[in-house]
């Protein structure tokens, strides 16, 4: 427990070693394997890809998968669309989540606990079942269409499900708690007198928000956005259950290449490219977290 002395007792070394080894084997090493397989060819065999060294012992490496991905229009569109949809979902989460987090942070302590509870509660309920719930609401004979028909707003059911719109709803619905909680944590630490002080000095509510609240909430905003954007990029279930044929997301494509087409090498290269897109945001998040936990 002495700072920076580097004196490692045996039990300290064991405490570090066990989770370290586990993560090295089960988290890090597999990425090397994905990389290796992404350079292989698919074959009808068990497992369905060419081994690294063939019978003569020379390495069998092909970059076919990558050249395909980088030139195939459909794949490029899918990658871009995934980034786009994840980004839009993140912004929507922020627009809804920020005022919510702000409202919860400002509430009196008794009410605040209940509000926090209610935000966390859906998170503990199966993610799959919650997406399923939206299927019921959005489909042509579902609650929303029935309501609109009954109100006379529309004459015929509107296609809500199996659209990009439904995917956005699903993404925001599932990831909202991931945006609200870090935002709440940051806003709660902010001294409420600061906003009052700025208004006392002549700032309008909008200016007070821009000058005081927003800059101070930035760490929470960044954390929340990363916690939504990164996993949303690779989402599979939501585009599958709620999306239509044009709601192309890379997670779904990867899954289909792997299970439907049995093309493991291609799926691997899809994963590697996706990872490359995500390395920067993940590293950024890691740095943020380190500052938050160890800097403060």
């Amino acid at each position, binding site marked *: *427990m002495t700072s*920076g*002395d580097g004196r490692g007792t045996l039990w300290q070394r064991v405490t570090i070693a066990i989770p370290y080894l586990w993560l090295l084997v089960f988290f890090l090493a597999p990425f090397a394997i994905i990389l290796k397989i992404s350079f292989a060819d698919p074959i009808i065999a068990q497992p369905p890809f060419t081994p690294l060294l063939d019978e003569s012992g020379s390495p069998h490496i092909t970059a076919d998968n990558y050249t395909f991905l980088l030139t195939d229009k459909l794949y490029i569109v899918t990658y871009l669309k995934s980034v786009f949809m994840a980004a839009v979902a993140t912004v929507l989460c922020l627009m809804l989540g920020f005022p919510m987090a702000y409202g919860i942070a400002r509430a009196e302590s008794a009410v605040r606990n209940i509000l926090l509870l209610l935000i966390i509660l859906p998170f503990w309920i199966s993610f799959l079942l919650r997406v399923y719930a939206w299927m019921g609401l959005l489909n042509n004979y579902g609650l929303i269409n029935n309501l609109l028909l009954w109100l006379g707003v529309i004459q015929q059911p509107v296609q809500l499900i199996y659209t990009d719109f439904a995917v956005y709803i699903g993404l925001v619905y599932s990831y909202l708690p991931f945006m609200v909680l870090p935002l709440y944590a940051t806003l709660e630490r902010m001294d409420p007198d600061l906003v009052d002080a700025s208004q006392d000095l002549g700032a309008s509510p909008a200016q007070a928000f821009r000058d005081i609240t927003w800059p101070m909430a930035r760490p929470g905003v960044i954390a929340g956005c990363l916690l939504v954007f990164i996993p949303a990029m690779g989402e599979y279930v939501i585009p599958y259950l709620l999306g239509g044929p044009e709601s192309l997301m890379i997670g779904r494509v990867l899954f289909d290449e792997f299970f439907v087409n049995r093309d493991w090498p291609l799926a691997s290269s899809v994963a590697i490219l996706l990872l490359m897109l995500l390395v920067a945001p993940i590293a950024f998040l890691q740095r943020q977290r380190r500052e938050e936990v160890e800097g403060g």
Partner: protein
Amino acid sequence: MTATEKTNNEAGGAPIIQVKDVSKHFGDFVAVDSVNLDIHRREIFSILGASGCGKTTLLRMIAGFESPTKGRIFIDGVDLTDVPPYRRPVNMMFQSYAIFPHMTVEQNVAYGLQKERAPRNQIASRVSEMLELVQLQQFRKRKPDQLSGGQRQRVALARALIKRPKVLLLDEPLAALDKKLREHTQFELMGLQDRLGITFVVVTHDQEEAMILSSRIAVMNEGRMDQVGTPKEVYEYPNSRFVADFIGTINMFDGSVESVQDGVMAVRCDAAGATLRAVSSSALAPGSHVCLAIRPEKIFISQEEPQSKWNTSLRGVVADLGYFGNLSLYRIRLENGKIVQVSAQNRRRSAERFLEWDDQVFISWTTQSVVVLPG
């Protein structure tokens, strides 16, 4: 070594803690710089300094939570520099008290003895004895969050003292207490120390606290030990500007030496517009820079011309005054603008003020009252 230090040493024998040339570096930052200390048995020794001067780091090295980058630490003659804290015969009272929140008062106090694997009944009786000593018997089954700050401090004390350590280290023991409680606790601590005969090493930034509690004070400045002495020595005979200024208030006059004759140094001070005199046996050459310093309570203030017994007299005007009940503080502006602080006891009981703003006054002092500090 002054006379007082000599007496302490003889009375106690060998010092119980010896810090030998200890330094602590954190990367490029030097927190503690070649400190040498001898702490004697049964004394209350304070390490005094501003925040960030390294005093807490030094204390933690004695406790064993930091290792010195250089130097050795001896406790009761044994080199314990590389020994971990759980094997040192010293115990610490933390600034935050560090009472274990998930244990009762009893369990907290018993913890140290349990680690010594003392027999059960012995633990029970010693815990009761300790709780009796700090007057917490009726709270023994309570949890820390049910106690006041002062009570929690007593639990921390009892928990540390029950192990009968050779030395008790205290990190800012009075910082978290309000004024009345602080005074009460000061005397309690001194009484406890006297009764138990344990050496106390106290770290504090509050010089009043250090002055009242300690038998000796060490003044620390940016990692270095500036002066070690009794409160009186440090107050009346500071050896540097820093120490003089840090302890209490002091007036400083910079000047150059005119002459040193018959044990009296004459210094030309432009700020005072006069030649000031101080008792000194130093052999400084004329022209050397010195600083003469005098405490506010050593200065006599009057509206009439002062008597001849005061060797030095200056004219000035009352620029500001403050009434504190038992004494009054005056800020006197001399002819060329320098401000001198004077304090005087309010001996006379009267509804009228003795002096008013803008009164013309004389401030006077004797040559013996002046301290010579390096320029």
